């Protein structure tokens, strides 16, 4: 939309204004209501909308959370970060990838030491998975199968969806993990992009497009594949032998109260991680054992891949990777994508 940015600005402003208005109204009301209810505003990326329901309910049952009320906002990770910068009230932010969190630390909305905890600021994690049609008619098993002639790939647009970067980096990184050079990885990615049938705007759009019949393969997060299947989607997924660990950061904002910190602690606790595991996120704690509806094997939902790449260990961390691969002018992926249209 040509008027996108003013519209978004206005929308953000209106949202912020309405949040201020409602919080201004509700503060005195809750004050007279007797108990000291504490308000916590969660701002999170899209997929958490479903996942956080159980968490919030369980937290409110605990001692730390019994007097805490929540207001929640979910949307695309980048949009959410921008909304918080534009004034959306947030006590806890839970985003899809670190560069979005960096936007908030740059604005001093989140303290610079947000990564200092034992989890290094990561609250939920998953892995990049390959979703295929029911029964896997194209017999996709490994990354090399994706670049065979005639295989059509759907993956969200890494330009308009920050979270799509995980998928592209997984495709790139697995070549390196297999002993390939940067040149080999670029060669692979070039063929991969040549097979892309659609670059939908977001992970959600990509799933919709794939379910609408486009493509043989959908690159998705494991938890999204699991959640879609639990909700009735009729497709299979597999975890390739080499894949990338997806790490979703979370932090409290600089002016958040104790309740927000308590909620973040709860998210990282065994109980919190169990709730997330039920929704398809890989728990930090190996001792978490739950049935995961929608998983290939609900009883053993999270098979360990042969090689699990991480952004820090294998791709130089987000600070470096974002510039190297996604810089608007010179990013390796940016250039390959631009070139892919000219075949």
């Amino acid at each position: 939309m040509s008027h996108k940015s003013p519209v978004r600005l206005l929308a953000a402003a209106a949202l912020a204004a309405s949040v201020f208005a409602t919080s201004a109204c509700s503060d005195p009301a809750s004050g007279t209501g007797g108990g000291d209810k504490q308000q916590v505003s969660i701002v999170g990326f899209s997929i958490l909308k479903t996942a956080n329901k159980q968490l919030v309910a369980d937290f409110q049952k605990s001692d730390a959370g019994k007097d805490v009320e929540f207001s929640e906002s979910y949307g695309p990770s980048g949009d959410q970060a921008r909304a918080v910068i534009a004034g959306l009230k947030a006590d806890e932010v839970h985003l899809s990838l670190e560069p979005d969190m960096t936007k908030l630390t740059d604005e001093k909305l989140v303290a610079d030491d947000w990564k200092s905890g034992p989890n290094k600021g990561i609250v939920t994690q998953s892995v990049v998975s390959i979703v295929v049609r029911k029964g896997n008619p194209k017999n996709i098993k490994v990354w090399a199968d994706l670049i065979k002639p005639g295989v059509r790939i759907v993956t969200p647009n890494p330009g308009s969806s920050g979270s799509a970067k995980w998928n592209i980096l997984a495709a790139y990184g697995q070549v390196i993990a297999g002993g390939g050079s940067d040149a080999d990885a670029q060669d692979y990615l070039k063929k991969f992009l040549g097979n892309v049938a659609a670059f939908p705007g977001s992970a959600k759009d990509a799933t919709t497009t794939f379910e609408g019949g486009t493509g043989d393969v959908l690159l998705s997060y494991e938890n999204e594949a699991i959640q879609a299947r639990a909700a009735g989607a009729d497709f299979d997924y597999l975890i390739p032998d080499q894949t990338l660990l997806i790490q979703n950061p979370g932090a409290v904002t600089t002016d958040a109260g104790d309740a927000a910190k308590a909620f973040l602690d709860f998210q990282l606790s065994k109980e919190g991680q169990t709730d997330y595991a039920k929704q398809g996120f890989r728990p930090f704690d190996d001792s978490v054992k739950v049935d995961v509806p929608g998983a290939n094997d609900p009883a053993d939902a999270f098979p360990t891949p042969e090689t699990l790449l991480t952004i820090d260990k294998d791709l130089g961390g987000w600070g470096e990777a974002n510039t190297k691969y996604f810089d608007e002018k010179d990013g390796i992926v940016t250039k390959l994508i631009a070139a892919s249209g000219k075949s």
Partner: protein
Amino acid sequence: MASVDIATAPDAARTRRPRTRRSLTGGSGLALGVTMIWFSLLVLIPLTAVLISAAGLGLGGFWEVVTQPQTAAALRLTVVESLMVTALNVVMGTALAWVLVRDRFWGKSLVDIVIDVPFALPTIVAGLVLLSLYGPSSPLGVNVANTRIAVFLALAFVTLPFVVRTVQPVLESLELDVEEAAASLGAGRFAAFRRVILPSLIPAIAAGAALSFARGISEYGSLVLLSGNLPAQTEVASVRVLTFIENGNREAASAVAAIMLLVALLVILVLDVIQRRLARRGD
């Protein structure tokens, strides 16, 4: 200012002094003030903000952004497809309005209502409808997903009502006598349409075309699902804008937006000139 005007207004009326064009009555002065404030808040200030933000790039930076091959291709695609869709709407929209006003058939009032649906539908829902109708699992056996035809279809779908809705009321208010008079003076049906009816419709058609084009170049939601956003093939300008925003490059996003603004202005201007010229020829 306004209250003074209101107090003196009766006196002014009594003396019957002819008003100069610059003096407004209190009421209309107030109305003008409110309108301008509203218009400024809603339109002028945000648009200026876009231009200022784009200006942050400087001329060289601006040029670099909009001539970058992927962005230029997206801009070209958006403008060309919008022009094509607008041309289609001018013909089909006028025909539809004609049928709705002049013909009687079963289900007419239903069609009359349904025409607004593409416009009223949330765009992402429109996108879903189009994907299920013209995507890989199309019940019609038509699969145009991830091609430029998909972009065209989505734009045609959401812009359908504009020309119909601007032409329809004008056509309704046209007296049949005029046509009969033309016929009695020896004009054939075609001549009567071209010389009598069309000139009165042209302002409405032009207004509808402008709306349709403006909507076309700004469209996002209805086409992203079906078009696949393939760079240099089916990626439209709004996806480029989103990409720049996602990467924190607000200036570049504004630069693309500014180009779209200019194109919209230009097209509206051209339509206005065409309309004036054609309307004059009809006299």
